[in-house]
C-alpha cells in the first residue's frame, strides 16, 4: 500500500482518567438503570483554542481505546489512529484540539462489566447494566463538560465510532458544528447481527465463561473470546485483502495435511485471536456488540427533528470493499439526512482492504478528510 502519512507524531502521550459520575450522583442510563461511579479514560492532543472553537471528538470502534495517537512508553506501535492525528496530519494537532475517550462498557480504563461494583466489592459481571448508544453519548458529553468544552467543531468516528457520532448529532445537534461518520451504519442487517450472535455464543458457551464470573474464579474464556475475534476479523477484511496478504501460502516448510495450522491465513487468524486476549475482556465484547445490534436511531419518532434548529454539516464515507458495513449502510444515513435538508457530503472510497480501510492511510481517504477538516476550521463552531 502507498504510505502517504505526512507530518509528525504527537509524541509520548498519557491516558488520564476522570470520574464523571459517582455512586451518589450516578449516570442514569437510557434504560432507566443507574451506574456509578463512572470513570472514563481519555487522551487529548493539541491545545484548545482560547475561544474553544477547535475541539474534535474521536469516537472509537468496537475494540478501540483512548490511545488514538502518539506513543506510550515501551510500546512497539503508536495509537490506533496515529496516521490521522498529529502535527501536519489531516487532523493537525497544531491547529485542532483532539479528544478521544474509552467507551463505558469497555475494558481499557473506563468503567465496564469487569470493573469492581462498589456495592459488592466484586466485578459487576453480568450484573452490569445493558447499555445503549445514547449512554455512550451521555458519557462523552460529561467528559466535554469536565474538560470545559462547550461545543465541538467536529465529532468523528469510524464503524461503532460513527454510530456514536450519528446518535450524538441527532440527539444533541447543538453540541457540534460538523459530524463525520465513516464506515458506519444506522441499522445493522440480519447478517451483521448473525456474526455478532455467533461471536457471543462462542464466548458464552466457553466452559470458562462461568456466567460472567470468570474473573473471580481466576480464569478467562480464552477459547471463546479468541474465536469471536478470529471470526470478526474475517469480516473486517475483504476477500481480495486476504488473497493479497496470504493467498494459499502454507504456514511452514512442510504441511501435514492434518487439522493444524497449515495455511498462513490460519496462523494469522490464530495470532489475531491470541493477541486480542491480552487487551480485551469477554464481557465488554458482549455488552458493546449488543449495543450495535439494537442501534436504529432513525426508527424513533422525530429522530431528526432537532437538526432543523441546529443544522450539522455531515461527512459520510464508505469503502467499496467493506462488506461488514457496505456503502448501502452509508447511503441510508445520507438519504435520511438529505431528506431533512442537512448539508451532506458523501464519498465511497476505493480501497481493497474492506472495513478496516477506515483505519488505514489511503491517499484519497485522507485527502478527503484533510479538505473537510480544513474547511471545518474556516467555518468554525
Amino acid at each position, binding site marked *: 500500500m502507498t504510505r502517504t502519512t505526512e507530518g509528525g507524531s504527537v509524541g509520548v502521550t498519557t491516558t488520564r482518567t476522570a470520574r464523571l459520575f459517582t455512586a451518589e450522583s450516578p449516570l442514569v442510563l437510557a434504560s432507566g438503570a443507574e451506574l456509578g461511579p463512572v470513570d472514563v479514560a481519555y487522551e487529548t492532543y493539541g491545545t484548545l483554542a482560547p475561544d474553544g472553537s477547535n475541539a474534535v471528538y474521536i469516537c472509537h470502534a468496537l475494540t478501540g481505546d483512548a490511545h488514538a495517537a502518539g506513543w506510550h512508553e515501551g510500546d512497539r506501535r503508536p495509537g490506533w489512529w496515529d496516521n490521522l492525528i498529529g502535527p501536519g496530519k489531516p487532523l493537525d494537532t497544531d491547529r485542532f484540539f483532539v479528544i478521544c475517550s474509552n467507551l463505558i462498557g469497555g475494558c481499557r480504563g473506563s468503567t465496564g462489566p469487569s470493573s469492581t461494583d462498589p456495592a459488592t466489592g466484586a466485578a459487576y459481571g453480568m450484573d452490569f447494566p445493558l447499555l445503549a448508544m445514547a449512554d455512550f453519548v451521555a458519557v462523552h458529553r460529561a467528559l466535554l463538560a469536565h474538560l470545559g468544552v462547550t461545543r465541538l467543531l467536529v465529532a468523528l468516528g469510524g464503524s461503532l465510532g460513527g454510530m456514536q457520532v450519528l446518535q450524538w448529532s441527532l440527539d444533541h445537534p447543538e453540541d457540534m458544528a460538523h459530524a463525520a461518520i465513516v464506515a458506519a451504519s444506522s441499522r445493522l442487517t440480519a447478517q451483521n447481527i448473525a456474526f455478532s450472535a455467533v461471536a457471543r455464543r462462542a464466548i458464552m458457551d466457553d466452559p470458562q465463561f462461568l456466567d460472567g464470573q470468570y474473573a473471580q474464579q481466576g480464569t478467562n474464556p480464552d477459547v471463546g473470546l479468541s474465536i469471536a475475534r478470529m471470526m470478526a476479523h474475517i469480516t473486517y477484511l475483504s476477500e481480495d485483502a486476504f488473497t493479497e496478504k496470504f493467498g494459499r501460502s502454507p504456514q511452514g516448510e512442510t504441511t501435514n495435511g492434518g487439522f493444524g495450522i497449515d495455511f498462513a491465513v490460519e496462523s494469522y487468524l490464530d495470532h489475531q485471536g491470541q493477541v486480542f486476549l491480552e487487551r480485551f475482556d469477554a464481557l465488554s465484547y458482549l455488552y458493546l456488540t449488543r449495543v450495535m445490534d439494537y442501534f436504529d436511531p432513525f426508527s424513533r419518532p422525530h429522530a431528526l427533528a432537532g437538526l432543523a434548529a441546529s443544522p450539522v*454539516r*455531515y*461527512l459520510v464515507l464508505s469503502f467499496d470493499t467493506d462488506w461488514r458495513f457496505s456503502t448501502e449502510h452509508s*447511503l441510508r444515513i*445520507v*438519504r435520511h439526512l*438529505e*431528506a431533512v*435538508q442537512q*448539508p*451532506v*457530503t*458523501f*464519498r*465511497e472510497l476505493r480501497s481493497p482492504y474492506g472495513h478496516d480501510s477506515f483505519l488505514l492511510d489511503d491517499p*484519497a481517504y485522507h*485527502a*478527503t478528510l484533510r*479538505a*473537510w477538516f*480544513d*474547511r471545518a476550521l*474556516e*467555518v468554525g463552531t
Partner: protein
Amino acid sequence: MTAPTQLRLDLQLVADQVFAGSRVLDLGCGSGSLLAHLMERKRCTGQGVEIDPDSVLAAIRRGVPVLDRRIEDALVDIADDSYDTVVLSRTLQTMLRPEFVLAQMARVAERLVVSVPNFGWYRNRLRLLGGRMPVSKEIPYLWYNSPNLRFTTLADLEDLFDQLHLIVDRRFTYTEHGRRLRMYGQSANLMASAAVYVLRPAR
C-alpha cells in the same frame, strides 16, 4: 476564506435564474462554484452531485456539500418536490439516459435549469459536411475520448421537453464567445453554440 467567486459566463446566466433563498440541487456541480456563489450571494442552501474525484475534493474544500455519486443514482434517492430549483449545466449530453434524468429532475423540483451545448450549431454542421466530427469550444473532444454520450440539437432537445411535458419558461441562446443571441424559433438552432433553458413541469 474562499475568495468571492467569479463565475463562468454560462454559470452566471444559470445563477441569475435561481431565486434568492431557494434550495438548489446542482447535478454535475464540478468544484461547486455555482453553489458556492448561490450560498454566499443569494442565501441559497444546496446540495451538489459530482463524480470527478478532483472536482469533488475541490467542492469539499470550498464547503459545498457534495454527493460523490452518479447523477442517475443520486436522483432516485431524492424525495419528490424537495428542491426549489434543480440545475444541470453542460451535463445532459454525458448522461446515458437523458430522458430519465430530465423526468427525475421534474419530480424533485418545480424549476429546472438546463444548459447544453448545441450540436446543431452551424460550425458543427460544417464540420460534419467536411466529413469530420464536430470539435469546438463547447465540444472540445475527439470522438474517442469524449465524455459526451448523447448528441442533440436544440430542436431535438425541445421535442424531448415536449414529450416529457416540460414547459420552456425561458430560453437563452448564445454564441461560442458567450454573447447572447436575440433569436427565436429555429434560427437559434443554427446560430447558437449553447443554450440555457428554464423549465417547469406541467402539473
